């Protein structure tokens, strides 16, 4: 679960990380009152859950009230990478002397949290990692005893700080690590962490909570309707408990098991088709699940064919067949099924005029060459 910048900054404030906070508006009418409070100039920042806001014009500086109103209106009317901007963060610009990067990620290979830091802040850390990996300082956190203050001091030192500056920076890093641990985050970032005449200041904030941990973090109760992380179709899928990703092709895909669905996309692609989506109905799906899955993928317009790929282990093929018939698809459906109750499924589908393929490549080929 991704948090918006201002939501993450609220948590920073709670933990005592110096942060450029401000006010969030959804309606330009509320801007003047804020300007009255915090004065001019202001920075207007679109609150969306995708990277590259700045480049997309979602971050603007305004020096006069008229300019602020105009730019706020522009940003609140934007879509960035398909997501409408619903909220705007208004804050006072900071006097930036230098920009650092500090973040924590889950390191899959070490199976530990990794603390990453760099003097090259303000730009994408992956770019830094690629171009000048020596500029990234890395420190692993013991998963059992957790982050230790001396690790943070060591990193602050390696970033080139001494004395009280080193201690202040270490304290910010430590608190960031504590948020990572306390909130079950899978990613937390301050980029940039600015050096200003007043000291360190987190100008941006990225925080992604591990969905699997949400049961023990009631503070992050996901309000799907309000969520800005997903498209409308993704929300419906999420509510139905199905893993769905929207793609830009025209062949709808349903399969059981993430790996098999990914392979299905690849095979469709191999034969020259373009998958319209990724949809995993998981193991043990019944007719209702199948019907719901078809409803979801057909919410997308322009579908030319549907490829259904089931390797029935726990999943019973006849349930899947019944789900297809209940839905009555209006788009051509190419079904590959094998495994549990395969024969029953074949009878059901054949009698309704559907062919049943045994190999995924044949079914995929048919769906593409239709």
């Amino acid at each position, binding site marked *: 679960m991704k948090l918006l910048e201002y939501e993450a900054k609220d948590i920073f404030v709670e933990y005592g990380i110096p942060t450029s906070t401000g006010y969030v508006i959804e309606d330009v009418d509320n801007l003047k009152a804020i300007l009255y409070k915090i004065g001019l100039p202001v920075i207007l920042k679109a609150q969306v859950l995708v990277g590259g806001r700045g480049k997309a014009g979602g971050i603007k500086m305004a020096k006069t009230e008229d300019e602020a109103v105009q730019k706020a209106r522009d940003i609140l009317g934007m879509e960035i990478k398909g997501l409408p901007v619903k909220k705007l963060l208004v804050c006072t610009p900071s006097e930036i002397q230098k920009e650092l990067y500090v973040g924590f990620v*889950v390191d*899959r*290979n070490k*199976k*530990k*949290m990794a603390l990453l830091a760099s003097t090259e802040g303000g730009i*994408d850390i*992956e770019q830094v990692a*690629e171009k000048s990996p020596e500029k990234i300082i890395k420190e692993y956190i*013991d*998963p*059992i005893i957790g982050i230790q203050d001396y690790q943070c001091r060591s990193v602050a030192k390696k970033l080139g700080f001494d004395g009280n500056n080193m201690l202040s920076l270490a304290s910010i890093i430590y608190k960031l690590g504590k948020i990572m*641990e306390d909130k*079950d985050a*899978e990613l937390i970032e301050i980029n940039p962490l600015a050096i200003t005449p007043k000291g360190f200041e987190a100008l941006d904030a990225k925080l992604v909570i*591990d*969905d*699997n*941990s949400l*049961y*023990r973090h009631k503070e992050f109760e996901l309000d799907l309707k309000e969520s800005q992380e997903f498209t409308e179709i993704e929300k419906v899928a999420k509510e139905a408990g199905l*893993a769905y*990703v929207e*793609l830009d092709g025209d062949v709808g895909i349903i*399969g*059981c*098991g*993430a*790996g*098999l*669905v*990914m*392979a299905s*996309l*690849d*095979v*469709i*692609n*191999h034969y020259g088709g373009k*998958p319209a989506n*990724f949809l*995993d109905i998981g*193991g043990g799906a019944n007719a209702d699940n199948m019907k719901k899955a078809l409803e979801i993928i057909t919410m997308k317009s322009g579908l030319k064919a549907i490829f259904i790929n089931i*390797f029935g*282990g*726990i999943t019973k093929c006849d349930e899947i067949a019944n789900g297809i018939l209940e839905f009555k698809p209006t788009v051509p459906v190419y079904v590959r099924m*094998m*495994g*549990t109750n395969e024969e029953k499924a074949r009878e059901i589908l054949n009698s309704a005029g559907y062919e049943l393929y045994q*190999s*995924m*490549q044949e079914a995929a080929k048919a769906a593409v060459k239709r």
Partner: protein
Amino acid sequence: MSILVDEKTKVVVQGATGHQGQFHTTRMKGYGTNIVGGVTPGKGGQMMGDIPIFDSVEEADADASIIFVPARFVKSSALEAISLGLSPVVCITEHVPVKDAMFLMDYARQYDVDIVGPNTPGLISPGKALAGILPPHIFERGEVGLVSRSGTLTYEIIDELTKNGLGQSTALGIGGDPVIGMDFLSTLERFEADKETKAIVMIGEIGGNAEELAAEYIRDNITKPVVSYIAGKTAPPGKRMGHAGAVISGKSGTAESKIAALNAVGVQVATMPHEVPKLIKDVL
């Protein structure tokens, strides 16, 4: 031979009396796995068919454990098994918080215990023992060792192998989560040491760089032929493709990078799943 489990391994099932646990415990036992009991605290003394239920792992006197308990109880259940030195501990449960997974992997390292999973279909040494939820009828005893990040895609490829007369020594799902116990490296090491295994199939997918690391490891340590398939060639960046671990971040974690790394060390990578048996036959 085989790796991790065989017909002698005494297996206990934690969470045996739940819906999934019951079904799979019975099936594993039916397959011939040496299931010594199930564990459900508070139900000790009951029988589930001919399988005794215990209150604790300790009472079951097992060598290895399979975990079916709900995600929020996985940490505690796994700690119980690890602290007794059971190995492997196979965690079928999905949706385990990654913080718990990291904790467990570190704890298991201290006790020298192998964790399989979480979010894994488990493993099977065909004809000897099933320690997981893989559909056993598609497997056949043989000389191919298989290791995979995916469940159903494994079944797909196993089915092709078996149909083509290529039986398996052990097939292991390492799980689709970002943080897992047994990984490509540790599994490859076991297959290399296993006398029965003559060739290895490695099924990867997008996300992370486990396949790239495996390629390096294969170059330096594996003498047996390895064949691969990588899923997700057409997946877009930034989107989680079903598995929590299957996500391309920026330029890293792409199928291209993985395939290139494997090809560079002489590993043939199948374009489509059904091509795997042919590639195996070429190298055997």
